[in-house]
């Protein structure tokens, strides 16, 4: 049998699936270009941007804060325990702040909140697609990208860095409380060590990651939502695919952004 040939009754071949993925990637790239070209040209829908930023941000805040609190608690426990073996437990504040700011706060926020936001967008736009509301927008003389996609993508772009900053702060406070109660390190000592170690670049790299992850989440959610086919079953498929794609893409992007930001 030829490589990539279809096995009877086993769905599309590897070659067909690869072609489909490449076509999707191409279509997503085209949509990204269209979103930015529309975003820079008036008219600007400020009301819609504010609405989506507020609704995505406010609804996502509790889960972001909860995740960050427990992330701060756990890494402080872990680092405090291991650093004590080498007698340098007083440096725990430095390690916790760098881990949180550079890595854990943006990535965990993207994986938890982002999956929720992305799948929500995919479900909402997917439902609009299958009920012909997206076609209706076009038929009534409006542009679905401008009306639906631009405000959501830019809302994600704004919300994710803001949530990352909230996660930084809450995670750090959680970490400080654990270190004080478990290892007897005062809050002053913890925060002094943390602030001595951290540079503006560490903070900014986390915020940049948040923004890039937000962009990925918004674009993937919108793309999968608008590409829904096959009724309500298709909507379900789009939401799960959005979670999978955003999670993998966030991890990949995290590596490359880290690589780039370490040079600065």
């Amino acid at each position, binding site marked *: 049998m030829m490589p990539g040939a279809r096995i009877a009754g086993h769905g599309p071949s590897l070659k067909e699936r690869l072609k489909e993925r490449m076509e999707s990637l191409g279509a997503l790239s085209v949509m990204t270009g269209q979103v930015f070209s529309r975003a820079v040209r008036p008219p600007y829908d400020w009301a819609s941007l504010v609405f989506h930023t507020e609704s995505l941000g406010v609804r996502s805040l509790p889960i972001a804060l909860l995740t960050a609190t427990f992330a701060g608690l756990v890494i402080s426990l872990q680092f405090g325990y291991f650093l004590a073996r080498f007698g340098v437990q007083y440096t725990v504040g430095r390690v916790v702040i760098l881990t949180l700011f550079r890595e854990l706060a943006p990535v965990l926020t993207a994986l938890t909140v982002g999956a929720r936001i992305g799948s929500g967008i995919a479900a909402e736009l997917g439902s609009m697609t299958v009920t*012909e*509301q997206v*076609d*209706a927008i*076009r*038929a*009534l*003389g409006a*542009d679905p990208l401008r009306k639906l996609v631009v405000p959501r993508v830019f809302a994600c772009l704004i919300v994710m860095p803001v949530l990352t900053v909230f996660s930084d702060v809450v995670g750090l406070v959680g970490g400080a409380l654990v270190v004080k109660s478990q290892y007897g390190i005062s809050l002053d000592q913890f925060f002094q060590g943390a602030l001595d170690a951290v540079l503006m670049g560490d903070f900014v790299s986390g915020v940049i990651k948040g923004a890039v992850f937000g962009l990925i989440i918004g674009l993937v959610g919108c793309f999968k939502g608008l590409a829904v086919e096959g009724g309500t079953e298709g909507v379900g498929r789009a939401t799960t695919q959005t979670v999978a794609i955003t999670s993998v893409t966030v991890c990949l992007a995290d590596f490359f952004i880290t690589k780039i930001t370490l040079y600065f």
Partner: protein
Amino acid sequence: MRKARSAHADPAVPFAFRKPTPGEELIRFDGLIKQFGAKRIYDGVDLDVRAGETLVVLGGSGVGKSVLLKCLIGLMHPDGGSVLFEGYDVAKFSEEQFLEVRKHVAMVFQGAALFDSLSVAENVAYPLREHFKKMTRAEINKRVAEKLELVDLPNTEKLMPSDLSGGMRKRVGLARAIATDPEVILWDEPTTGLDPVTTQTINELIDSMKQRLGATSIVVTHDMVSAFVLADRMAMLANRKIVQVGTPEEMRRSQVPEVRAFIDARRLELNPRGTP
């Protein structure tokens, strides 16, 4: 045979609508080809629509009746052939060029496609805000009330789509479609899924649009009763082509197998035991 006024095949020529005289050819599908993946649904569809008439397109489920409407307003693009509207080949139009076409051609979707997050008034006002940027809020409100009155839904402005029944949703969909006073209305399965009384109400509304607005209508349906009630002419889409076009009387007497099958199936539905 009526000819298109001019053949503006060059997409660079800006679209300008000129009100046609009744009976004049307004739309022509010429050798239309459309396929989805490997499945070809149109293999040279030819059909003309005359100004002021109600043309009913018949066909079984999945033959691509709705695709014909979507090709006319650019929601789908054909793979071959041309779609002449007022002599302009809109098949070659860009999304921006279609904006002007969509001021004159409105579509009533099968499931109404109302925007769930907007009220009835906001739904009806939607095309006005898009097409007529200079309209004041008071003018928009007045037009919305007029159109809702026209579809027998006065004082429903504040209701949400979730508060409406199927028939009411269709009527709000119609009010939204006619908000800009379009010259052509495309009806996608307007009576599917409705009870006989509501079906009759919708049929009367479609007919009244012709009488009151002088609009040209293309109705896509497989509901034979509605088709015979509404049609000035009927077209049968089968085997990837238009197999017959004619008046309701011509269709009734047709010997084309696909048309006969449709008419006989309807007779059987009304009289399942075949009693005289």
